[in-house]
């Protein structure tokens, strides 16, 4: 569930930002998509994506733990 939420929010918030950018720069959707997702040159991609990936892993982990707990509760 957490993973789904993570992916959903990630995609939709990126979409939101892209929609705003489309309006602002008068570009087509795919141009903006490309343009938004290439990070600024000064940005350390490693840091940003490491953070995101830890987030993803955390949500996997949390989901796993919760499903385990749920199954245990069901059993008992």
């Amino acid at each position: 569930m957490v993973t789904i939420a993570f992916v959903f929010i990630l995609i939709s918030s990126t979409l939101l930002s892209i929609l705003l950018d489309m309006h602002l720069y008068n570009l087509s959707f795919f141009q903006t998509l490309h343009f938004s997702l290439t990070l600024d040159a000064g940005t350390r991609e490693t840091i940003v994506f490491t953070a995101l990936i830890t987030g993803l892993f955390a949500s996997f982990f949390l989901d796993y733990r919760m499903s385990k707990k749920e199954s245990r509760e069901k059993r008992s």
Partner: protein
Amino acid sequence: MKAMKLLLPSLLLLGLLSGCWDTKELNDVAFVTGVAVEQGEDAKFKVTVGVANASQLNVQKSEGNTPSVTFSLEGNSISELLDKMNVGLTRELRFSHTRTLVIGEEVAREGISGFLDYLERSGQFRNNFTMLIAQNISAADILKTTFPIQKIPSLKVHNQSSTLFEQWGGAPDMKLSDFIAALTSRGRQPVAEALTIVGTPKQGQSVENNKKLEPESLITLVGLAVFKEDKLIGYLNLEETRNYVWTQDLIQTTLTVPCGEEKYIDVRILNSKSTIHANYDGETPNFQVEIVAESFLNGTQCKDNLEKIETYKKFEKDIEEMVETMILNTVTKVQEEYEVDIFGFGEVMRRQHYQRFEAVKDQWDEQFSKADIDITANIFLRRAGTSNKSFLTEDE
């Protein structure tokens, strides 16, 4: 607890990943205390920086070497030059403690707004350093002339001008931010302080200069540089500078007022307050400048009995007359000679008669030069030092 377990490693990871982007140890940087900008020979600007040599300022470590080092480069933009200074200097330069900006006369006549923007925009500078115009001399020399008491030349100039402003009012309290504010305001034209070197500049450029009782060369303040927009158009002398400051916010000053033939009284002025009332008389603007100040007598060459009220009254009247004519002369001089409103009368007009000002704001300087100015001084002589009657006074 689980969240903590995630949080702490990621924090640590970040710390390790990051390194330290902004660390600069104190002994890896050099602090610029003064910047001088003047006309370059081959390019638009020649920029000189004065860098403090901290170890010579420390009593224990000082070896008698120079407390400040200068270096010059030529180029077309200040920003680039400042970052390129390592052509000749060893360390990374830091500008946060810059106290003076000396501008050469030729550059000032050409217009200075081009690099003021950089100074305001760059977060490196504190925007309250003193603006100075080097009159008749090379601006770089200001950063090179030593002085025994305040060892770093640019700091010396800074202290000098702020002390003169506080003690006598002979220097405008013009910081970069004030300068830019005046530049952007329609109702005021900027001014800056002018300074020059007395003596031979070359002689002053050595630590040896500090060993003489009378320095071979000395930086002195000479008055006010008047600007139209961002271009220098002329100067006012020290007296006139004081009068200019008096219309703004004078802290204290001393006057020599005639009290008889070739005889003078010395008056210390304190707590002066000037208020300006603006008005339109038909098409000509007029301004009443009201000066209220307290004063006390420092010394007298006259024989008047200082225990009498009449004497005080007479002196007060003398002082007032003198102040009024003095300031009026200065204002009129500016009106006639330079035709720029350095006094900020336009701003007063804007505050008090917004609509009228808005109508004429684009040609305010013409309006100013034809304005009627009326100065009323109201000086209270409170006391006369620690003695009563002067020994000059003859008993009646």
